[in-house]
């Protein structure tokens, strides 16, 4: 049989298997190889909430989706073109995400009676045999048996052989998509330096998987995805949480101050703690506190002492930190609060994504205690957003919320990383020592931006007291004076508003600066909205895309931009939060497109919703 090679603009592959099948690694390796081939790429890992759910069951399925292409790729893909399933539970959990006509590559050993029962198909109801998959192209490969045969002479243990079967699948996929093996081979050699026999075993299986594709006749087609036209430069692959870490470290370095990170483990934020704790030689101190409150409190203590104070969490933990954030508002200290949002309320769905904490960040504290809010749009953008959050916190002596989410945190993209020399300087203004000056030191004296200086212990002559009680305007002494409280309340608001003077003006991301409708988004919906808007534009719709990074204060020109459109449409992975702020601030009759399913927007569903709204108008 002649194998035909087809050219594709973009492809979405989903690897799915049991938690122990190594699907995350398989996906990551395919991602690296593909990025090195010059494709644009986005990924989305999905883990089960349970660490070791029973083997072979649907709750134990772990998957990794990647979308790559020769064109601009902004999302991990709506439906996938290829679904790799290592067992029947993986098929059951993921079939709805495969497009009609898509390819299923099934490991037949994962469809034996035991696995069919565990997946609750029932042992006499094998989907590979009962005709239920007639809408798809099913390719059956006995990966488990072929891996065992491949390593029968290797001397490796049963367990080691079993664990290398993902390499067979990876090799097969490399053949299908014309990818080279070298990057993966060097990774394996590096990973198993101390166990070369395991490295050799894995490499053999990888190659055998590749050759299996070449020599058997089960595959009718291979695919070529040409290099993407992406900006010239040097790239690396990065996840949102990794980029967040780098942004924090870079900002502290640019301000020449230490970074103190107080945190308590929580999904999906914990990776930030893991990564930062390894960077002790970068002026980073990490503290795994006894609880969320201690985490933020320790960061406030460190900020009082002259460090950039940072704490991280997800929704439930952020709720616990609220009182302490209010204290930081009162004290006027640099504090960055990273909220890697997840689906709520309460414990909600820890491993699923949502952007429903915007109003919590905006209003979720007692009294009126305004803070700055910044949200990254893509995994790589987490670097810029974390850097900006830190810069503003330090230069304006104010708490800043950074609103990422599970989708950005674990998703990855190629990132044209910056160099230190290209980074902004972060201006730290420590109050200098005083020696016998007549005027008393005023801890809350302000400059024209309404910012006080950072007066840290150890500096002679500026001993002073701060606290959570309302304070007199300049001295910081406790004050219950009615006019003073009015003044201070106004001032805390003005301090935030004034930051709009120093942040970039809002740009229109796609489309014209006027038209029938503008889609206004924030955070991780960026890729879906951008892709939807660009496709709608091609279809002749007069739509544009504005994506807001600075959510409080808004960029100064945002209202003006919105007024140039007949309709303002706000897609959000919540029941309507930014839309409320926009209506409230700019009096625009904005409409929401809302989804709370723990999954990102699909481009097609967004387009459909926009079309409906536009047709209603006519």
């Amino acid at each position, binding site marked *: 049989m002649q194998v035909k090679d087809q050219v594709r603009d973009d492809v979405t592959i989903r690897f799915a298997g049991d938690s122990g099948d190594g699907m995350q690694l398989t996906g990551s390796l395919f991602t690296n190889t593909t990025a090195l081939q010059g494709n644009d790429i986005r990924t989305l890992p999905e883990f089960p909430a349970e660490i070791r759910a029973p083997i072979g069951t649907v709750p134990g399925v772990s998957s990794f989706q990647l979308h790559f292409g020769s064109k601009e790729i902004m999302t991990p893909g709506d439906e996938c073109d290829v679904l790799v399933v290592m067992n029947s539970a993986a098929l059951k959990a993921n079939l709805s995400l495969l497009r009609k006509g898509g390819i299923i590559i099934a490991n037949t050993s994962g469809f034996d009676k035991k696995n069919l029962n565990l997946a609750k198909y029932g042992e006499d109801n094998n989907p590979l045999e009962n005709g239920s998959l007639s809408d798809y192209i099913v390719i059956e490969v006995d990966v488990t048996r072929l891996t065992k045969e491949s390593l029968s002479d290797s001397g490796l243990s049963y367990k080691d052989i079993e664990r290398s079967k993902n390499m067979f699948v990876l090799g097969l996929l490399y053949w299908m998509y014309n990818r080279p093996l070298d990057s993966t081979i060097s990774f394996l050699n590096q990973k198993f330096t101390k166990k070369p026999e395991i490295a050799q075993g894995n490499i053999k299986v990888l190659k055998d998987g590749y050759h299996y594709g070449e020599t058997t006749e089960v595959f009718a087609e291979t695919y070529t995805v040409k290099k993407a036209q992406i900006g010239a430069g040097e790239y690396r692959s990065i996840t949102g949480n990794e980029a967040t870490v780098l942004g924090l470290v*870079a900002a502290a370095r640019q301000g020449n101050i*230490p970074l103190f990170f107080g945190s308590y483990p929580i999904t999906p934020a914990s990776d930030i703690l893991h990564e930062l704790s390894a960077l002790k*030689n970068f002026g980073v101190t990490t503290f795994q506190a006894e609880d969320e409150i201690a985490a933020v*409190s320790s960061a406030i*203590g*460190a900020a009082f002492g002259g*460090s950039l104070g940072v704490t991280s969490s997800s929704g439930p933990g952020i709720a616990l930190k609220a009182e302490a954030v209010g204290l930081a508002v009162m004290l006027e200290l640099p504090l960055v609060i990273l909220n890697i949002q997840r689906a709520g309320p309460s414990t909600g769905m820890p491993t699923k994504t949502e952007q429903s904490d915007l109003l919590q960040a905006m209003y979720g504290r007692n009294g009126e205690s305004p803070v700055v809010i910044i949200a990254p749009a893509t995994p790589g953008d987490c670097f810029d957003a974390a850097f900006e959050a830190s810069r503003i916190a330090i230069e304006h002596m104010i708490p800043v919320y950074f609103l990422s989410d599970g989708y950005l945190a674990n998703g990855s993209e190629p990132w044209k990383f910056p160099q230190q020399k290209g980074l902004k300087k972060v201006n730290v203004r420590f109050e200098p020592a005083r020696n016998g000056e007549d005027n008393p030191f005023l801890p809350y004296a302000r400059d024209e931006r309404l910012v006080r200086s950072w007066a840290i212990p150890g500096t002679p002559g500026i001993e002073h007291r701060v606290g959570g009680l309302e304070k007199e305007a300049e001295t910081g002494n406790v004050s219950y004076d009615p006019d003073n409280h009015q003044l201070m309340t106004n001032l805390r608001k003005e301090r935030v508003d004034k930051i709009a003077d120093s942040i970039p003006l809002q740009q229109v991301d796609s489309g014209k600066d006027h038209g029938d409708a503008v889609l206004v988004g924030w955070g991780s919906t960026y890729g879906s909205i951008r892709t939807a808007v660009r496709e709608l534009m091609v279809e002749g719709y007069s739509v544009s895309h504005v994506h807001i990074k600075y959510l409080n204060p808004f960029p100064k020109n945002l209202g003006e931009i919105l007024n140039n459109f007949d309709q303002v449409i706000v897609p959000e992975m919540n029941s309507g939060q930014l839309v409320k702020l926009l209506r409230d601030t700019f009096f625009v009759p904005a409409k929401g497109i809302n989804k709370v399913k723990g999954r990102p927007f699909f481009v097609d569903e967004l387009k459909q919703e926009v079309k409906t709204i536009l047709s209603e108008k006519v």
Partner: protein
Amino acid sequence: MSLETIIDLHIKNGAPGDMNYTGKDFSSDQDVRWCPGCGDYTILKQVQTAMPEIGVKKEDIVFISGIGCAARFPYYMDTFGMHSIHGRAAAIATGLKISRPELSIWVISGDGDSLSIGGNHFLHLLRRNVNVNYLLFNNQVYGLTKGQYSPTAPSGSVSKSTPYGSIDHAVNPLSFALGADGSFVARAMDRDPKHLNQMILRANSHRGTSMLEIYQNCIVFNDGAFERFTDKKTRPVEAVYLEQGEPLIFGEKNEKGIRLDGLVPKVVSMKNGEFSKDDLWIHDEKDKTKAYMLSRFFDQPEPGDENRMPRPFGVLFAEERFCYDEEVNRQIAGVVERKGVGNLDELLRGRETWIVK
């Protein structure tokens, strides 16, 4: 670039503070606003008196408090200070101490602040042994909120929120501290300023979390809670002062002692010649088991019983063990020594890159 170098770079360029302090130098310009006759006044005075003796520059001293009457304390000290939020002073102090280990940090807290809302942080501060001084003002009542019973109030306490008597079992602060592996556990009282002063200085010289419980009279809502220890007439019978290496002696004429009968402490009289000082329990502040027994000398048995145990004052327990803040910084220094100061460009670059032309 180590953390210290960064701090040095920024701030150690000023003239060092004058070290010839008197107690007055530590008094801020703020009017003290506690109720007249409040025990807090004596404690403030003794802390201000102790400050010139600890040999630390004013600018290197920080007082951190939570919420409660005692929490106003930092405002009255002419040092750096933070009046924070309820129960969290220990956590704030931990962050500050880790990032600025050279500072002398004093946490001012109360029975509610430490043992109700802040119990978790107090526990973890003690077990980590962060090198701060912790003054726990215990008045067995919520004063600032006007008179509810506190977690240290004895069962049956009648208060605004317990008109029929509290049915809570009271927490014993010193047993709690020992249970949390506190490395320094001591008790003093507001009405014995000389001893209080000694204890403040002892707390300061201990490396690690120095937990000093101070019995403090709330004149408005719980007046006389500790009168039997503070009244000069009853004190000799109701209190025993602990001295390292000395026998446990008390009584109006120092005629009573405490003797260990196996593991059971017993009050014995030295009047009739049956027992002498040599038969008594010799205080050893390094003995944790005995320290715990001392912490249980707590209103047992009832007054009048001849075996009634006096309440111990002084250092129950003190041990040297590693401090969290020092070890964190030692670990960082070790990593810097091994790996060198991190190169930001290498970090941004990561492990694997590719070039698009």
